């Protein structure tokens, strides 16, 4: 708050003060009051108002300066009322009280929504677990009746979609529900491959896996989901190609472990490459292949962020797509612990 602006705001008072002064002055001249008394009165008159204005200005100046500075520094700006003391002037008090009330009602509103969202998340998670039970029965039934492979495949698809929403919820959740421990990459790859075995065999996709005895620090289930998403994508975007192949490779590099999943599918156009991790982005390939939701890689990159892994995509349209995970060896988690 600048003094000049303050005066501008009080221009009406200033005009009145000067006007009244001139009325007094004309009276004093009219009543032929002694000149030295006139000077004395004028000085006192203006001094009084200067003091009054300065007092009022500084009272407000210190409060608002403090208020604006703290507001600027604060990340959660809605907490400003907790940081700033009550002002000692009337309009400030009213303003402060109003701000306090507005904040309170907004917080209640947010809390309401937050708990509604949490309830919803919990319900969806519960629902997914419930739905998996009849799905299991169906899978066993299909197997026992030696039904067509199509049925098993469709059940698998339903299961994949269920996993996707489950991990979407987990990735958006602020609560931590993962455990970091040493995970053998070969075990994760094996389980993902077994899960997709029928589809991979049917599509006649060759698998080459060379992960040796490399292990990484991660949450086993999350990593399994992530790799499953990547492999599912490879399968999905590998139509009408001869000699389909997925190559999985892992190696150590300095203090990192790198895991690469390379396929010779349709690749990603350069213009779409930077947006592949965006939510609901499907791009040019999404229009070619049905069932693209644009959620898979978004969820995967979110989970990676939470676990402290890095994920990148390299691709050349019509040639290959390579998804690269980089895992930090120990140091990251030692710091956290």
């Amino acid at each position, binding site marked *: 708050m600048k003094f000049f602006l303050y005066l501008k705001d009080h221009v009406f008072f200033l005009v009145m003060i000067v006007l009244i002064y001139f009325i007094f002055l004309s009276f004093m001249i009219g009543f032929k009051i002694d000149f030295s008394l006139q000077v004395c009165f004028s000085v006192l008159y203006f001094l009084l108002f200067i003091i009054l204005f300065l007092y009022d200005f500084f009272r407000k100046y210190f409060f608002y300066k403090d208020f604006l500075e703290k507001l600027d520094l604060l990340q959660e700006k809605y907490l400003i009322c907790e940081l700033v003391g009550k002002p000692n002037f009337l309009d400030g008090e009213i303003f402060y009280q109003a701000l306090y009330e507005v904040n309170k009602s907004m917080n209640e509103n947010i809390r309401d929504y937050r708990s509604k969202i949490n309830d919803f998340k919990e319900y969806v998670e519960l629902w997914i677990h419930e739905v998996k039970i009849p799905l299991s029965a169906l899978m*066993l039934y299909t197997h026992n009746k030696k039904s067509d492979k199509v049925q098993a495949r469709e059940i698998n698809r339903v299961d994949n979609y269920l996993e996707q929403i489950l991990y979407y919820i987990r990735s958006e959740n602020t609560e931590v529900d993962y455990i970091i421990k040493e995970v053998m990459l070969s075990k994760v790859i094996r389980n993902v491959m077994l899960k997709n075995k029928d589809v991979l065999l049917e599509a006649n996709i060759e698998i080459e896996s060379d992960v040796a005895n490399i292990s990484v620090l991660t949450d086993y289930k999350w990593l399994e989901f992530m790799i499953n998403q990547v492999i599912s994508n490879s399968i999905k975007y590998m139509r009408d190609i001869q000699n389909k192949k997925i190559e999985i490779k892992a190696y150590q590099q300095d203090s990192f472990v790198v895991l690469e999943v390379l396929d010779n599918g349709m690749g990603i156009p350069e213009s779409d490459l930077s947006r592949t991790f965006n939510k609901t982005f499907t791009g040019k390939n999404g229009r070619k292949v049905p069932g693209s939701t644009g959620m898979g890689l978004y969820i995967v990159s979110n989970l990676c962020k939470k676990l402290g892994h890095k994920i990148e995509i390299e691709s050349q349209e019509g040639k290959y797509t390579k998804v690269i995970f980089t895992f930090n060896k120990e140091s990251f988690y030692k710091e956290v612990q």
Partner: protein
Amino acid sequence: MKKILIIEDDESVRSELKTLLSNAGYQVILSEDYQNMLDFIIKTKPDLVLLDINIPYMNGEVLLKNLRRVSNIPVIMVTSKNTEIDEVLSMSYGADDYITKPYNPTILLLRIGAVLKRSEKVLADFLSYHDLVIDIKKGIVKNGEEEIILTKNEMIIFLYLYERMGSIVLRDELMTELWNNDEYINDNALTVNISRLRSKLRELGIDEAILTRKGQGYILV
């Protein structure tokens, strides 16, 4: 015949599981008396328990904890709750394996087989089949002085058939077993591997070792 107890509160899953395990040659016992389940387990002494985490009256994890105080019967936890925390907890309570729903039946059978084998602790290094001696560690089949080396894939196939000698083994089972050993081969390669295994056995004097059942699978006789 191995006896497996299924503790599962969903009726459809339970009955389908029973069919699956019976077809696979196991004796299946069931009980719905969840309150006295511990006594039932101790009384019937199954070779393996398939335990669902969400059962009435008593949580599956509590039952497992109580069971571990008195017995070390192999237990496979089955659940639809798919988090690492649940798995780590179950394993710390003494579960031998942890499988999440919906499970692929072939993989379920594989895991059951693995847990049963582990509990027997008889992992022989040598097997005998007709006049042959199989050296698993070296990957060699011998008939007297004659020796033939089996590849890793051929050995996996032979061992799987050997353990189920006399009963039909589906192609899908063999494929699952191979993939479970990180050998991600395709249909053609499986056919090639089996015919190569056949001709190797023939060279050692066993002509009709692996029979083909059209549309079903293979039998080792």
